[in-house]
């Protein structure tokens, strides 16, 4: 059973389109994240949700809108896609313990904007 699953794995689309990436975790975790890995290989946090509430928004353009319908799901919707949005997007989850926060990652969504 996959602990953190995200779909689709690959997403190729044209500039200006709107697309969504879905993420689900079956670990019983209370916190979920979206990370972006760009061409320089940095893993940079975009959003964090704890119990369905947004707690971190790292100056991400408002074309990116996360939605958490429940603790086990965190989806990412992207409007008006731009070339610079091309990257690998990772969903992750953790159990907020107040320390030593281990992240469990999905396998990533490779987004290519043409």
């Amino acid at each position: 059973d996959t602990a953190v699953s995200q779909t689709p794995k690959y997403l190729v689309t044209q500039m200006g389109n709107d697309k969504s990436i879905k993420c689900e975790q079956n670990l019983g975790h209370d916190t979920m994240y979206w990370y972006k890995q760009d061409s320089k290989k940095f893993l940079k946090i975009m959003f964090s949700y704890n119990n369905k509430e947004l707690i971190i928004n790292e100056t991400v353009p408002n074309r990116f809108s996360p939605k958490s319908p429940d603790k086990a799901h965190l989806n990412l919707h992207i409007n008006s896609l731009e070339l610079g949005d091309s990257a690998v997007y990772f969903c992750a989850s953790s159990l907020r313990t107040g320390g030593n926060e281990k992240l469990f990652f999905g396998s990533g969504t490779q987004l290519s904007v043409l």
Partner: protein
Amino acid sequence: DQQVKQNSPSLSVQEGRISILNCDYTNSMFDYFLWYKKYPAEGPTFLISISSIKDKNEDGRFTVFLNKSAKHLSLHIVPSQPGDSAVYFCAAWDTNAGKSTFGDGTTLTVKP
């Protein structure tokens, strides 16, 4: 401002030898430091961590050392195996900020 840096983009070692991966940080508020391993087309997976109040943590072939005064940590893998070939990310957890900050990774190649 890159708060976590891994200055070696790549490292190549012979099977059976020691692999040493390094990481430097600038923010003294970090509480925990973690290492993640990533294979191609997969997400990073947790490997080992260390609290900021410790200077060493060992788990099998993997040992992490923390030098707080130098704001430096390292991951030692002994003995290295071909299956250890992957990208290794150093990460630092800030409890107050509620997030982990990642380095840009070191690609380890272990040659048989």
